[in-house]
């Protein structure tokens, strides 16, 4: 039984790690801030949930379980809030999402349109 739990837990952790990598690739490749926030926050919470669940299955101790639960709670509470705040700040600063067709695989720079530039401008 314990052996099986161990393997399931390990598999969940691995799945979480893969999700994290996926998210990181998304953050690296997506065209604008909002899609990147989307990629990061979804996979952060999702990956964290999977991993912490996996650790919970491996973990033998009660107190460790509690802490894992707390870490999970924290991430669930803070990661979306931070993503919300970030998107809010970006929007407030005048960064507009890129809508329409553009080359996903191409240059990662903002396509010369004003809004994102202005975001950089306020930032610097």
């Amino acid at each position, binding site marked *: 039984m314990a052996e099986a739990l161990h*393997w399931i*837990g*390990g598999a969940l*952790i*691995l799945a*979480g*790690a*893969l999700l*994290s*990598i996926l*998210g*990181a*690739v998304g*953050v*690296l490749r997506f065209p604008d*801030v909002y899609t*990147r*926030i989307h990629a*990061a926050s979804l996979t*952060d919470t999702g*990956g*964290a949930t999977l*991993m*912490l669940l*996996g*650790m919970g299955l*491996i*973990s033998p*101790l009660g*107190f*460790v379980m509690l*802490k*894992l639960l*707390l*870490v999970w709670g*924290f*991430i669930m*509470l*803070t*990661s979306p*809030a*931070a*993503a919300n*705040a*970030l998107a*809010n*700040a*970006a929007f*407030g*600063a005048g*960064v507009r999402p890129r809508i329409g067709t553009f080359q996903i695989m191409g240059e*990662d*720079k*903002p396509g010369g349109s004003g809004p*994102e530039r202005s*975001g*950089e401008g*306020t*930032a*610097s």
Partner: protein
Amino acid sequence: MLVAAGVAGLVVAMSLMIVRAMIGPSHYDRILAANSFGTKTVLLIALMGFLFGRPDFLDIALVYALINFVTTIALMKFFRYRTLARPLGAMAREAGKDG
């Protein structure tokens, strides 16, 4: 072994995040990368606890989650101020009289 693979995966994801933080281009991307890097560090530290056999160090992961949040809020707040700030030269002159 699977835990070790999970750790490796996280390290890869963290490295990608560093790349994003380096290339930007806007500061929001950097903040996003830093925040996401933080979340992954939390997970990494928790996992390392299991990998090295001392899971009681989850406290540190907990602190990370917390600090990461506050830092992100501070950054966000920073932008709110910047958008309101008027040209800085005038402000400094005013302050100079005081001090």
